[in-house]
């Protein structure tokens, strides 16, 4: 047990938790806005993967990790535009189209990867880190929390911004109305379609950024199917958070810790097969759903496309 409590172990655990949590946090925050507005965005896995591909592609081509993040946002939003047109504008089934988009992006990125990178497997240089002055000198938590890539702080900041947006602004109220009672919003003069399109595009941007983080900061390269269900975990986080961004953060950190615990155990010399390690986050999701699933609250009009005058 003593080996488990060394500074190196704790530091790698905390670092791993945060690194693993950021993509899920971004995806969960994005999905949360879609769900608030009444769109169950199953395509988020595809948006994330497209963000990872385009994020890496741009970062590699232009040799700039920041342009890469921008590319990731654009990639996620490209898929989101399709989702918005097909599911919000045309009112097609959100689950079928969501699965379709995810499958399509999986195939497309694997195809592009095959023709572009599969021979060379290029890597990005190690990302820069922003040391927050003084704070990064604290032992254990200093290097793990306060010496990370700036995107981490942006993700954490967006939790606060979104919480404010949902609670204190008209846009937040409109979003909620679009998910709970679109007909009432329509009667009140709100634009249901506009709000939902906005929320889907926002989801795409966040998921794309999360994907780009996964590729550019997490791995340093693009691998086909590399998101491996992180987007789906984002959906679970959004479902369990009952509309609160802070809970998405807490959930993401718990799953991140579950992921990094096993990595840290390996560092500490434990011998667990990788398949078992990869099972942990999904098992954790099921466990959480079993305990708290009853309390997951979803907007009344979630997954139902709105058509004026339809019964």
């Amino acid at each position, binding site marked *: 047990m003593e080996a488990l409590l060394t500074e190196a172990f704790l530091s790698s655990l905390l670092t791993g938790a945060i690194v693993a949590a950021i993509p899920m946090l971004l995806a969960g925050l994005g999905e949360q806005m879609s769900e608030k507005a009444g769109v169950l965005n199953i395509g988020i896995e595809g948006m994330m993967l497209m963000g990872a591909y385009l994020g890496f592609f741009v970062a590699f081509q232009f040799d700039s990790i920041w342009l890469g993040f921008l590319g990731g946002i654009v990639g996620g939003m490209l898929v989101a535009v399709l989702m918005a047109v097909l599911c919000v504008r045309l009112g097609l089934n959100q*689950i079928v189209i969501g699965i379709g988009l995810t499958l399509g992006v999986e195939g497309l990125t694997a195809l592009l990867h095959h023709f572009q990178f599969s021979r060379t497997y290029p890597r990005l240089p190690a990302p820069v880190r922003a040391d927050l002055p003084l704070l990064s000198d604290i032992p254990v938590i200093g290097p793990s929390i306060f010496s990370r890539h700036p995107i981490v702080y942006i993700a954490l900041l967006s939790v606060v911004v979104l919480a404010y947006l949902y609670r204190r602004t008209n846009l937040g109220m409109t979003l909620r109305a679009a998910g709970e009672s679109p007909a009432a919003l329509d009667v009140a003069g709100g634009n249901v379609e506009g709000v939902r399109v906005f929320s889907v595009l926002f989801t795409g941007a966040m998921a794309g950024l999360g994907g780009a983080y996964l590729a550019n900061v997490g791995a340093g390269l693009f691998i086909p199917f590399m998101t491996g269900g992180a987007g789906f975990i984002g959906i679970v986080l959004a479902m369990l958070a009952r509309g609160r961004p802070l809970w998405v953060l807490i959930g993401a950190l718990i799953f991140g810790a579950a992921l990094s615990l096993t990595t840290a155990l390996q560092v500490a010399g434990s011998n667990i097969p990788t398949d078992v390690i990869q099972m942990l986050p999904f098992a954790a999701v099921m466990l959480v759903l079993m305990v708290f699933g009853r309390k997951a609250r979803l907007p009344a009009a979630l997954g139902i496309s709105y058509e004026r005058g339809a019964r």
Partner: protein
Amino acid sequence: MSMADDIETSETASVQVAVMRRRPALRVAMLTLGPILAAFVLSAVILMLVGVDPLKYYSYILQRGLFSGLGLEQTATRMAPLLFLCASLIIAFRAGIWNLGTDGQFLLGAVIAAATAPLLVGVLPGWLVLLVGFVLAALVGALWSILPALLRAYHGVNEIITTLMMSFLGVLFASVLVKLVFLDPATTVPQTRTLPVADRLPRLFDTSISSGLIWGLIAVIAVHLMMTRTAFGLRLRMVGANPHAAAHAGLSVPLLTMAVFALSAGFAGLAGASEILGVAGNVRADWNPAYGLMVIPLVFLARFHGIAAIILVFFYSAMLIGSESAARRLGVPQDFTLVLVASLLICLGLGEYIDHRMRQKEQ
């Protein structure tokens, strides 16, 4: 609205049936063939973008999957697991349950069949070995859906997420089982014991087609008849159309929900067993053909109709066989079929939308 919503309420469904009867045959044909054609054109554009001649690719697929004797036999053999999966999804979707976890159920069914059948050879008569393999696979598949089923039936937890999570878990767990528990001690590569060719499902006549095809066809037709012609099927469809109304009509919605999960996941398990007991003979570690999600568009394109699903599975199977050899010969990765399936799904959705608008104008 579209697709699944077609069966949402029995009232609109009957209206739609009346409208459909009046729809000219030409338009029905266009609504079916149009999206398929559009999907192939869209995918051709993507192929051109990565520098592959789409005509060459498509004609190669047709040649390999449909117009060569061996290819056609492979196509027919590959249909078996896909048909069982169609049966699984037709039950679930008609009953309004989104079982998106068929991949995990499929693999675990395959693993249990591969783990038990080779050990039973010689102990039991051949047909009984196969029967035990199939029954165990169905049970294990159903067992893997019990958590999502309970959560949905008694706690109202959305099954889309739970089945997906169990699917990820199942795929990894299957791999763990192969590597740690059911490992064949006689080989160095991690895989289960192999069922001898002579003990697998018999082949049809003088061909290499596995008789799993026949069982798959029977499964789809039986499920189709059960859902459309029996009182039990009507109950399931009522639960799918409107659970509140079904509860008011005196049906036990939670129990029926459990039954849907068990049947759907059971068929997914059978799909896995049919691939192992009919063709592969063993499960290698990390083997995952991931047919589950890809069959979904076919089932939707068939509008949950058994016969239509069989026809589509035939063409899809030909495409899979063709693209597998195209991957080797033309250097186009097999993942490209995912692009095709996705474009098919999206074009199909657009077709439904156009149809819907045209009907609205007529009324």
